[in-house]
């Protein structure tokens, strides 16, 4: 006897009703959900009541999607931090009695105070479910087991992925409290089917495996799911992970304070907005939605944050969105290439937008380079300029470094039309990271970075 009936298990989508719904019907449903979320936030969250009152807008005035786009203000992380500071830890951002808390998370606070994230049981279940759309589309079912190769901390990180495994009904094997070598031994012992990790850690385990004489491609892992940083939607990075593990690699894009918003497309070239539980806009620097097919900042509304509602939340992530039907059959908004960069990482070289994800993708095309690199951005009187440090593969002779650097610069010039200097260095000369890699170094003055001046900014 199986957990799911055979006919149900054979379904292509986790929720076929909405995942194949026509765009116009989805948009009508979104309006109703947005009105519900706004009504709730205004009634329960002092932060939202003050924000909407300051902008002289009442929930009942949001009658159309145009009202939502034009009348409601954006909200940024700083405003939530300010609201939490009123009475820490949650202050005016809180919308529900602590009786309903299920789990508390916090961001690292590396760029200021940590942002506190209260999750109710309701939110936790549905943060989890947002992963299940990916698990299901990737062919993962209740009979499969998942390996989690990291410690369980206060960061939301992969907790929601764990909640998703529980929601699906599959098995969890935890690698918490172990080092990388012990985790690889555990993988050999427990033979899990799926591993979740950041792209950096999935690749880092390859170096550990080589030291141990373990061939990851011969382990039981048949699916690697990556999250936490771009990589799964960058073909070269995905292919490197797939070759290393002998597995299929999928990604999920999420944001710590708002959850797993975009499960990866099973065709692997991008991700879909999880339209059951999230609404999104993609806007330009003036705050106006960009047409489908264009790049802008991802603005997200959650329908499942009843502890700390977030409506028109600025993610600072740059994405390209499209409403074109996807080959996977889903009608949910599609983001080819996943996250293309951060708004504060946007580089404009002689009028050409250069996205860090594109730099990574192109570097992988250059024969002789490894996956380790750094992008440095600076600015002269009129322009941003970019230099790249990249490590050569271990089997490349040092006399070829300059030639490979010229090859890489040539690829940038021919594909994106800008000059980027590439310095090729010896293997092991750049820092190594276990979880998330720091690859982008911005030396520009703050005034030359993306500023959203959009309507409704408080």
């Amino acid at each position, binding site marked *: 006897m199986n957990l799911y009936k055979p006919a149900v298990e054979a379904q292509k989508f986790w929720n076929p009703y909405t995942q194949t719904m026509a765009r116009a019907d989805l948009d009508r449903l979104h309006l109703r959900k947005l009105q519900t979320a706004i009504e*709730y936030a205004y009634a329960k969250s002092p932060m939202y009541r003050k924000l909407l009152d300051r902008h002289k807008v009442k929930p009942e005035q949001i009658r159309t999607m145009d009202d939502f786009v034009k009348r409601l203000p954006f909200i940024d992380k700083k405003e939530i931090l300010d609201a939490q500071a009123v009475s820490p830890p949650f202050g005016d951002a809180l919308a529900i009695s602590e009786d309903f808390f299920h789990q508390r998370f916090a961001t690292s606070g590396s760029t200021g105070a940590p942002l506190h994230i209260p999750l109710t*049981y*309701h939110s936790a279940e549905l943060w989890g479910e947002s992963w299940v759309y990916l698990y299901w589309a990737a062919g993962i079912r209740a009979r499969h087991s998942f390996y989690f190769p990291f410690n369980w901390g206060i960061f939301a990180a992969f907790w929601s992925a764990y909640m998703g495994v529980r929601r699906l009904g599959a098995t969890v094997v935890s690698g918490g409290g172990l080092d990388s070598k012990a985790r690889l031994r555990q993988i050999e012992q427990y033979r899990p089917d799926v591993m979740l990790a950041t792209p950096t850690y999935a690749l880092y385990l390859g170096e550990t495996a080589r030291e141990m004489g373990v061939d990851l491609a011969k382990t039981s892992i048949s699916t690697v799911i990556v999250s936490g940083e771009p990589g799964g939607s960058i073909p070269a990075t995905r292919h490197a992970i797939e070759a290393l593990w002998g597995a299929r690699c999928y990604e999920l894009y999420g944001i710590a304070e708002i959850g797993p918003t975009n499960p990866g497309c099973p065709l692997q070239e991008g991700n879909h907005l999880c339209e059951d539980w999230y609404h999104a806009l993609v806007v330009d620097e003036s705050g106006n939605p960009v047409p489908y097919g264009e790049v802008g900042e991802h603005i997200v509304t959650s329908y499942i944050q009843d502890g700390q509602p977030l409506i028109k939340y600025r993610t600072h992530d740059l994405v390209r969105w499209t409403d074109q039907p996807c080959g996977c059959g889903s009608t949910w908004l599609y983001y080819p290439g996943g996250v293309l960069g951060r708004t504060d990482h946007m580089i404009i070289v002689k009028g050409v937008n250069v996205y860090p994800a594109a730099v990574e993708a192109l570097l992988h095309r250059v024969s002789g380079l490894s996956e380790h690199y750094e992008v440095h951005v600076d600015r002269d009187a009129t322009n941003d300029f970019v230099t790249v440090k990249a490590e050569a593969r271990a089997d490349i002779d040092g006399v070829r470094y300059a030639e490979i650097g010229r090859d890489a610069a040539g690829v940038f010039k021919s594909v994106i039309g800008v000059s980027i200097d590439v310095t090729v260095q010896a293997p092991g000369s750049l820092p190594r990271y276990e979880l998330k890699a720091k690859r982008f170094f911005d030396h520009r003055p703050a005034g030359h970075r993306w500023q959203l001046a959009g309507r409704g900014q408080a």
Partner: protein
Amino acid sequence: MTREETLERLRELQTRVQELRQASDNPAIERTMQLLDLYCHMARWELGDVRAMNPEAESR
């Protein structure tokens, strides 16, 4: 089963669960009914039947 039929049964089920949640003085039963109420609410959202953010915000 059609979406409408599913929703009709879900609403009936949720009403009965809510009644039992209110009537019970057993903590274990109250918590279980509270979770069932939540799952009915989730299932209705999944089928596009949107009334409130969470069961507590639904007018009873």
